[in-house]
Structures are given as structure tokens and as C-alpha cells.
């Protein structure tokens, strides 16, 4: 067990070094500042998505659902669009990014708790119905986004679009000052609650029987998930299958039901995939923006495999 973690940490370290050093030419002061910022953002995203996925999977009591598959991240985008729509693009652009983010986060928490609290409140009875509803909700949110973006004055929208669409390749680093404390606090909370999560993983009835305030823990867990997903979406935009990929690999690797080791492993794996992948794709293959597409492709295959394996006795 300990050896696995040492190995994972080494790999993550190598990925980070590769990201910083590969193809670096010129003034190191500049490179350190420029790449360092991006590196921090990518690590933030990796940790946020992996922890959010693990917590969410425990809350919903299965290992196929992820917040992204249920449409959390697209919901965040939708709220952003709705805000622009409501305020008008110009006054929206004038708000400071931190304030905007906090506003959006508040709205997202409300919407997510309303939507998913209702859906998940009594435990997941019909997994596949939930999954399908989530996928369809995602499509609905996406359609609504494109509907609203078309309703906004095209000139106004064009001014915003560049700031609006982040990706692995074009990380929105202006939000780091809010994102880092957000992620640190959420992760610390999740870490402190890891034993509570262990109990919740037994199922709703057992957890209540063991004296857990299930409802309260469910909602606080959902808020953590929301905070993490909102932060990562604001930084790099929606990524549907990344969390699933990471969590599936870490369950396979750790073979434990304790959330402590699983969460650490998931975060490390996420860093390896994201930072290492970005280093390889951007510096070696010279195709930066395609990492997200490849992650979607592989993640989609993993998802199909998990679903198909599950139905077999």
C-alpha cells in the first residue's frame, strides 16, 4: 500500500517537473512565473475534480455517477450565461471577477441543492433513471446556454466570449486567488469528514442506524461538491468524464473502502493525468487543446465499460 503511494507521488512529481522543464527556453524568471501559475491552476483543477467525484459517488452510493455526468458543471455555465443575460454584458464585465465568482457560486449552490437534493434526498432508487436524467439535463442546459447566447446581442457577446471559454490549454488564472482558498477549505473539510463518508458509503439506512445525521451530512457534502465543481469549471470549463476516469482508476488501484487513501490516490492520479498529459500534448506533440478531447474519449470508453460490467452478473 505505502509503496503504491510513493510510486504515485513520484509519478506526479515527474509530471510536474516535465510540465515545468520540457521545451523551456529563455529567461527562467519569466518561465517560472508563467508556467508556475498555469501549473498551480491545473493542480487545483485536478484536486478539485477528483475529490468532488469521490465525495459525490459516496453520497449517491454508486461508482458510476459523477457530478459532471449529472450536469453540475454545465449548470454552472448556464448560471453564468443567465447572469450575463440578466445584467447585460457590459455591466457584467465591470464586476470584479472575485465578486462574480462568489455570486455565481452562491447561485449554483442554491440551484444544485434544490435540484439534486430533491432527486437524491431519499437515496438513489433507480440508478439508470438518474443517470439518464442527468445526461439529458446536461443536454438541456447546453441547449439553453446556446439559446441564451444567441439572444444576447452578438456584439456584446463577442466581447465576452474570449473571457468566457476557458480550457485546459487556456486556464483562467485571474481567479486563482479565490480558487485556491476555496479548494483548500473544501478539501480540508472533506478530509476531516473522511470517516463520516466511510459510514455514509454503507448506505442510507445503515448510516442512519449508526447514528449519523444523514440529511445534514448529505447537504454539507453536496455543498462541498458544488464548491469544487464550480471552482474547476470556472478555471478550465466543463469536462464530463475526467472525474469518472480518475475515480475508476483509483478504486481499482487502492482496493480499499476507506476514503482517506482513496482521496489521496485520486488526487495524485488526477495530477498525473492532467499535468502529465498537458505536458506531453502541449510540449511534445504540439496539440495543446486536444487533451480534453482525448480525456473525453477515454473517459467515455471507461464509462461504457463500467456500465456494461455492472449489468453482468
Amino acid at each position, binding site marked *: 500500500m505505502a509503496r503504491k503511494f510513493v510510486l504515485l507521488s513520484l509519478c506526479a512529481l515527474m509530471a510536474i517537473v516535465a510540465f515545468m522543464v520540457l521545451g523551456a527556453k529563455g529567461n527562467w524568471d519569466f518561465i517560472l512565473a508563467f508556467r508556475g501559475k498555469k501549473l498551480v491552476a491545473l493542480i487545483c483543477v485536478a484536486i478539485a475534480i477528483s475529490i468532488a467525484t469521490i465525495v459525490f459517488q459516496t453520497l449517491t452510493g454508486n461508482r458510476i455517477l459523477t457530478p459532471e455526468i449529472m450536469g453540475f458543471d454545465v449548470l454552472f455555465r448556464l448560471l453564468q450565461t443567465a447572469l450575463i443575460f440578466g445584467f447585460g454584458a457590459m455591466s457584467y464585465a465591470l464586476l470584479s471577477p472575485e465578486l462574480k465568482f462568489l455570486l455565481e457560486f452562491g447561485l449554483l449552490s442554491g440551484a444544485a441543492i434544490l435540484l439534486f437534493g430533491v432527486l437524491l434526498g431519499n437515496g438513489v432508487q*433507480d440508478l*439508470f*433513471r438518474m*443517470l*439518464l*436524467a442527468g*445526461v*439529458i*439535463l446536461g*443536454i*438541456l442546459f*447546453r*441547449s*439553453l446556454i*446556446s*439559446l441564451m447566447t*444567441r*439572444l444576447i446581442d*452578438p456584439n456584446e457577446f463577442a466581447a465576452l466570449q474570449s473571457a468566457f471559454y476557458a480550457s485546459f490549454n487556456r486556464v483562467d488564472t485571474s481567479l486563482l486567488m479565490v480558487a485556491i482558498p476555496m479548494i483548500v477549505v473544501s478539501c480540508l473539510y472533506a478530509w476531516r469528514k473522511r470517516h463520516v463518508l466511510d459510514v455514509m458509503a454503507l448506505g442510507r439506512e445503515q448510516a442512519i442506524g449508526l447514528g449519523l445525521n444523514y440529511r445534514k451530512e448529505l447537504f454539507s457534502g453536496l455543498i462541498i461538491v458544488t464548491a469544487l465543481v464550480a471552482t474547476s469549471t470556472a478555471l478550465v470549463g466543463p469536462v*464530463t468524464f475526467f472525474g469518472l476516469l480518475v475515480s475508476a482508476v483509483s478504486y481499482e488501484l487502492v482496493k480499499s473502502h476507506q476514503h482517506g487513501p482513496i482521496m489521496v490516490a485520486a488526487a495524485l492520479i488526477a495530477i498525473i493525468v492532467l499535468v502529465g498529459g498537458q505536458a506531453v500534448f502541449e510540449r511534445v506533440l504540439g*496539440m495543446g*487543446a*486536444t487533451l480534453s*478531447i*482525448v480525456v*473525453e*474519449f477515454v473517459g*467515455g*470508453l471507461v*464509462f*461504457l465499460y463500467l*456500465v*456494461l460490467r455492472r*449489468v453482468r452478473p
Partner: protein
Amino acid sequence: MLVSRIPRTLAALLAGASLAVAGIIMQTFVRNRFVEPGTTGTAECAALGILATTLFIPAAPLFLKMVISSGTALAGAAVFMLLVRKLPPTQPLLVPLTGLIYGATIFAATEFVAYEYDLLQYLSVWMAAEFSGVMQGRYELLWVSGAVAVLAYFFADRFTIAGFGQETAIGLGLNYRQILIIGLCIVALITSFTIITVGMIPFVGLVVPNIVSRYRGDNARETLPLIALLGGTLVLASDLIGRLINYPYEIPVGVVFGVLGTVVFLWLLFAKPARNG
């Protein structure tokens, strides 16, 4: 008016009608109410086919493009049918779910290729339907698509029987394999024609047959004309909404139908079981 309005109206009607027909055929074969070409990877495969043709044979005439994309659409639909066979019949919702992810995976592959060759813009044109580019001389392929849908009418009875399942169908004296191939060909042709001319309109093939079957049952010969009519009307109405809601700008019909279609889908998903039990 003759140049743009009439073709546009006809295009919307034809595309809607034939997509709805493709949807009901697919639903009958898979024996699942929640599938259609746009949510099971057929459309994505057709787009992949067009993309491949554009890349390797840039000078290909429209006809060749059509043949190739129909071929890939057919292959995509066939693979999906094979996938569905592996799924347990006790979990009906697994079928659309697998289809959606299957489609998303193929789309990611297509996107990757398109990105590498700077063709992403074309891809978004194929996947989001828009009728604003429709003019005389640019939509006639849809007539073929409509004709194929009419062809489907002649096989309607056999499709219904095939919908009973392989054993029953063979027991009733049907050449199951042959009818399956014919049906899939029809679906593939309609899908690729629509994508080439206007782009994919998601959820038409899913929503329309469901509405009709609620009132008229599942006898394909009886319901097929109704399905086609309703499909055409709904698409035309969506196009009109898209044109008027933000006048003088236009909203692509795919977006309008995406919103309407998903809402209806969710309603079907949660309302149906409550009604049956």
C-alpha cells in the same frame, strides 16, 4: 420568395418528417422508446463519414459524400444494435444511456480529427441544424430523404412485426435479418441526407413517435403518416420560433428543438412509469 421561403418551409417539413420516421423505425427495432438516430451515435457516425470524405477526397461530388456518410451511419447503427443485444432486457433505460455515451465517444473521436485539420467549424455546422442557408438548389436532397421515408411506409407492417422480437417475427414468417437491414438502411440514409443538407436536429425522432403512440398505439402502418406529419409540423414551428424570438437574428432550429425536446424527454422519463404502475 420562391427562392428562399418556399424551399425553407419545404426543407423544414421534409427534414422533420423523415427524421421522425427514422426515429420510429429505430425505436421499433431496439424495442425501446428512448432512442433515435441522434442519440445513438448514428448521426455522429454520419458526420465522421462526411469528415473523412472531406479530408481524403476533397473533390468528391455530393453523391459520393452521401454514399460514404450513409455507409458510416449504417455501420454506426449496426454497431449500436449489436451493443444493445448485449444489454439485459430488464434494464430498458440502459439502452438510451449506452447510446448517448456511444455517440459522445464517437463524437470525441470525430472532434479530434476535425481539430487536427482545422475543420471544427464544418463539424458544428453538421451537428446543429439551421435552415437559414436553405435556398433553391441547396435542399433538393431532402426530397430523396422524404422519398426514403415514403418507402418506409411500404415496409411498415413488417417493421411492426419485427418489433415483436426476433423469435416471434421469424415465427410469423418474416425474414427478420432482411427487414432489419432494410430498416437500418432507411435510418442511415435519412440521417446522412439531413446532416448534409441542414444538419442534425436532435430529439425529433424521439419525441414525435412517443407523442403519437400515446394516442394511436404502435401499428406502424397506421401511425407512420401521422408521425411524419407531426414531425414536419413541429420542426417548422421550431424554425419559426427560432426566427421570431430574437428578430432580426436567427436561432438555429437545432437549438430550439434541443430545449423543447429535452424537456419532453424528461417528462416522458418521469411521467411514464407513474402512469403504468
